[in-house]
């Protein structure tokens, strides 16, 4: 295959704290959050029709992104083969794994993935998945369909991908079959589905802001952001996976998390009315807390933390500042500590959070509850890790057993008060975390 010079990468925009690639905000998240969030959603599948949204959402986003990219002036002369290479390469770059699109035509075809993030991540976190269950690579399925539509200039929703084999179930490779979408070939054969895919909201209602270096800590936020955003974090050439900070990292589409989370919220609301919303919120916030526990915990025990951040730390509160500085390089928006009372309270201001950016642009802005679930779980997770585990004193195993111990701790921190850009129409989100 001819080597194309036009590969999609994107840039970190410092005034938005966001990685933008062909209009799509990309953020760092690890396999713990990716597969746990999906497992939470899947657990509702006996009473909610959740499967189609898991792949439709990535199809919407990937279609929008690559359609934009291929329309850019420098890319208009790319051949079909070049375009396939761009999409395969970006899949690898982001840590999603390795896919081979060579045999695809505009009618579809088979795609093989010898490595795939969700399949491997699932097996790593939960062990082998039962053979009689669906494969777990819904994200990849949607990615393949959306990319194929963009490559061949087809309208969004023309194609549909079904996963035939999955690494999570012990298969040596994940295998996907792409075909023309019809109402009756969607994942749950016994339910009627409407083809109603819509383009991604892309950057949504983003805000610009300036990262500050707080005066009450020796942690240098700006240096940490500069260092981390310049790290060469991309999928391995052979596996397409990003093994960093002790987790499998991805450069994931911010809008993917938002779409699957908020579509879940709508499904809960449709099934149970407003009574269903607190339960959905609790599930989504817990996913954020799990993410913080594993990702932030992994970061705090990483070589990068020990080299870059630990030499700046003078007391326990600097650990809170250190991890907040790291979050400011994840593409999640601006996280700024407004108040920190040791072992008591953390008040975090979030400007241009990716959750509210998406919600304000894509969903009905009337909401009964704050919608920054990841941020709420994440801020609680910071306090729990630092004040309710031994991580600041010694290296520790972060597993299910330790996690259960943590949540049973009588000083467990949760988000008690929230001000939300969507619910209260405020300028920023504010999350106040205190212990029970």
């Amino acid at each position, binding site marked *: 295959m001819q080597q194309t010079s036009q590969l999609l990468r994107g840039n970190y925009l410092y005034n938005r704290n966001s990685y933008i690639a062909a209009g799509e905000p990309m953020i760092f998240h690890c396999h713990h959050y990716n597969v746990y969030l999906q497992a939470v959603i899947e657990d509702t599948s006996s009473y909610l029709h959740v499967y189609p949204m898991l792949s439709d959402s990535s199809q919407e986003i990937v279609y929008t992104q690559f359609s934009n990219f291929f329309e850019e002036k420098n890319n208009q002369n790319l051949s079909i083969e070049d375009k396939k290479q761009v999409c395969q390469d970006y899949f690898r770059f982001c840590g999603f794994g390795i896919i081979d699109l060579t045999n695809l035509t505009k009618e579809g075809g088979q795609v093989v993935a010898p490595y795939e993030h969700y399949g491997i991540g699932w097996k*790593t976190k939960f062990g082998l998945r039962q053979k009689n269950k669906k494969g777990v690579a819904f994200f990849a399925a949607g990615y393949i369909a959306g990319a194929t539509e963009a490559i061949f200039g087809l309208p969004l929703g023309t194609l549909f991908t079904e996963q035939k084999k999955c690494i999570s179930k012990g298969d040596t490779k994940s295998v996907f079959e792409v075909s023309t979408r019809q109402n009756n070939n969607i994942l749950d054969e016994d339910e009627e589905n409407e083809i109603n895919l819509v383009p991604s909201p892309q950057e949504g209602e983003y805000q610009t802001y300036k990262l500050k270096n707080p005066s009450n800590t020796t942690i240098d936020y700006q240096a940490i952001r500069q260092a981390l955003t310049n790290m060469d974090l991309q999928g391995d050439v052979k596996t397409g996976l990003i093994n960093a900070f002790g987790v499998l990292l991805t450069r994931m589409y911010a809008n993917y998390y938002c779409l699957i989370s908020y579509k879940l919220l709508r499904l809960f609301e449709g099934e149970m009315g407003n009574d269903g919303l607190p339960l959905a919120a609790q599930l989504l916030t817990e996913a954020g807390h799990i993410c913080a526990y594993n990702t932030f915990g992994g970061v705090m025990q990483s070589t990068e933390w*020990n080299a*870059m951040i630990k030499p*700046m730390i003078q007391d326990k509160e600097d650990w809170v500042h250190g991890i907040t500085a790291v979050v400011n390089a994840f593409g999640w928006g601006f996280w700024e500590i407004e108040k920190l009372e040791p072992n008591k309270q953390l008040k975090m201001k979030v400007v241009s959070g990716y959750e509210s950016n998406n919600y304000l642009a894509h969903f009905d802005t009337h909401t009964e509850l704050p919608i920054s679930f990841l941020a709420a779980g994440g801020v609680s997770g910071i306090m729990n890790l630092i004040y309710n585990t031994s991580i600041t004193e010694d290296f520790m195993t972060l597993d299910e057993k330790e996690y259960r111990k943590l949540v049973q701790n009588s000083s467990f921190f949760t988000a008690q008060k929230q001000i939300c850009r969507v619910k209260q129409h405020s300028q920023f989100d504010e999350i106040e975390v205190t212990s029970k």
Partner: protein
Amino acid sequence: MNNYFEVKQIKNCRKFIRNCYTLFKPIDKKLLIQLENYGHLEIQSFSSFSPLAKDSFKLNLEDILEITGVIEGNEFFITIAKTDLELVKRIEKELINWAEN
């Protein structure tokens, strides 16, 4: 524990274990040269972003071994596939050898 390092094992993963060492002597160039037998050496220059920060290094051997650490620091990490644990002994010998000389 011995006269050269302390070690704590963490088990976050089904396939790999991670040994976290605190060395009693800061990591220097000599150790890095010695470890180059285990893979390609990569250095991350964090000190160019802050005078307080130190640099880190990483060595990878296929899918089975990753050695990382803080240059001029005491933190040293081995991440290794559970199927190849005998390699740990060899690397620990290298550490002792380096510390003694």
